[in-house]
């Protein structure tokens, strides 16, 4: 039992760390600048209060995993929903008959 605890906690910490890395990567790239920075000929300059929009969170993952395809099937059209439901009923009944 103690071993399982250790494994689960280690895996959880690992995934949390990966998640944090993804968060850092995802949010840094799509920052939007509200105000122009003052430009000087030499010296350091900083951006003032960049805003991160909810749509830009994890955008890299969204684009890479092609979640847009999943979004397309949740179109809000009842006809398409009903097709999925009929498929579901047929699959459940077939599975039940095959398993038995």
């Amino acid at each position: 039992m103690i071993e399982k605890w250790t494994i689960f906690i280690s895996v959880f910490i690992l995934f949390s760390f990966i998640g944090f890395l993804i968060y850092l990567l995802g949010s840094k790239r799509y920052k939007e600048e509200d105000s122009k920075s003052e430009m000087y000929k030499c010296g350091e300059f900083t951006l003032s209060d960049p805003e991160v929009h909810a749509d830009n969170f994890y955008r890299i993952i969204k684009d890479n995993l092609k979640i847009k395809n999943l979004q397309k099937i949740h179109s809000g059209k009842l006809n398409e929903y009903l097709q999925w439901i009929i498929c579901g009923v047929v699959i459940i009944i077939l599975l039940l008959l095959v398993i038995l």
Partner: protein
Amino acid sequence: MVIMISYILIVLFASIFLSIITKKYIIPIIGIILVFILIAFMGFFQEIIITRFGGWSPPFGIVWIVDKFSLLMGLLISGTCSLSAIYSIKYIRERKGNFYPALCLLTLGMLGVVFTGDIFNMYVFFEIFSISSYILVSFPLKKETAEASVKFLIMGALSTSFILLGVAMLYGLAGTVNIADLALKFRQENVFYIALGILMSGFFLKAAIFPFHFWLPDAHSVAPSSISALLSSVVVGTGVYAIMRVLFTIFGLSSFSIILICFGLITMILGGLMAFVQSDVKRLIAYSTISQTGYIIIAIGLGSNGLSAGIFHLLNNVIMKSLLFLSIGIVIWHTGTRDMNKLGGLGRQMPIVMISFLIGSLSIAGIPLLNGFVSKWMIYVATWEVNPLLTVVCLIVSAITLAYYMKAFSSIFLGPCRIKIKEKTPLCMIVPVLILTALCVIIGIFPQIITPVIDQAASALLDKSTYIKSVLG
């Protein structure tokens, strides 16, 4: 003790009629709270409570059965409805005279589903609470709520049609609609399994399990937050209850176990991924409901190993989802928007709501010392014994859950302030949120308070012979 069930029915019916006649919404609020107290009082009694309506003996007459599992569900339903009723005092600004009777009817319908010992009666109560939920989704009546309500109605009608068809087939095959009697007359024949498949399709639609989940985000995101809290927690939970009751008491799980695990797994992943890309905070929480239902269904599919974990996660899901929807409801009440792109920096203006939302988010992601961790841990242990790969997938989805809730938290409460809050949050909206937050923390730190109740509920569900003996004698 038998009289208690009659009291519950009398209180709810009286609340509905009196609130319609007097137009005073305080009556149904008191009525629902009274029902919660009556059900909590029934918890002090150890034996199964059987009520025979009209003096007719089962299997011919209608019976209501309160065992430990249905009692737990009854407490969850009446408790959540009470909090939602209190929250709605200020949250609902128009047509309160119509709202509260519909809320009472919703409570009555859900309690009927969990207490009845008759599968046809279960269908009738499914219809009752479905019809009241179509009405409640349409508050306040706007173009989007009307569309969601009509969609919900069509999907709900389809769901109850499947249930009715399944019940009719079972009646044709076994000649009875009493659950205990059906359990005795069940035969391992293909026709029985086709009836089971149709019945389960109806329940899957109610519980929003893939590929029957499509209606849920559309309906839950536009409903008033106090109703979204009920829909995502106890309404979906009632569908899950029906799956458990019918599978464990009538048919036995063995044939359906693998189907539950497969469908649960897809539901869990799909819900998580879809929540990941949302910018509408209520749609995000609605997809999260689908994902968490996936966890519960996987745990149920594991049979006796995971049943306690499934029931515990069902209970936690009710608490966490109500908390998340009610706390986000306060944000929507003040700002008038669900779009996370338009929100930001609200943490400084509403610190209590921010902390409550954070606790709910961390809890649902399964962070230690919060209630979600305990039930998720039990699910991890149960899945590990069957297939460690299943545990890894559950852990990955938990990480995804944490990621999308942190996105919501960050977008709404952190960063530069975009909207200035003018009004003070009413106490009746803050109190239910605080109660639910406290429950998340207390159950997380002291899970031993609740685990005996969960184990008793799981044992009651698994002990088919005692159920049959209690009903049929």
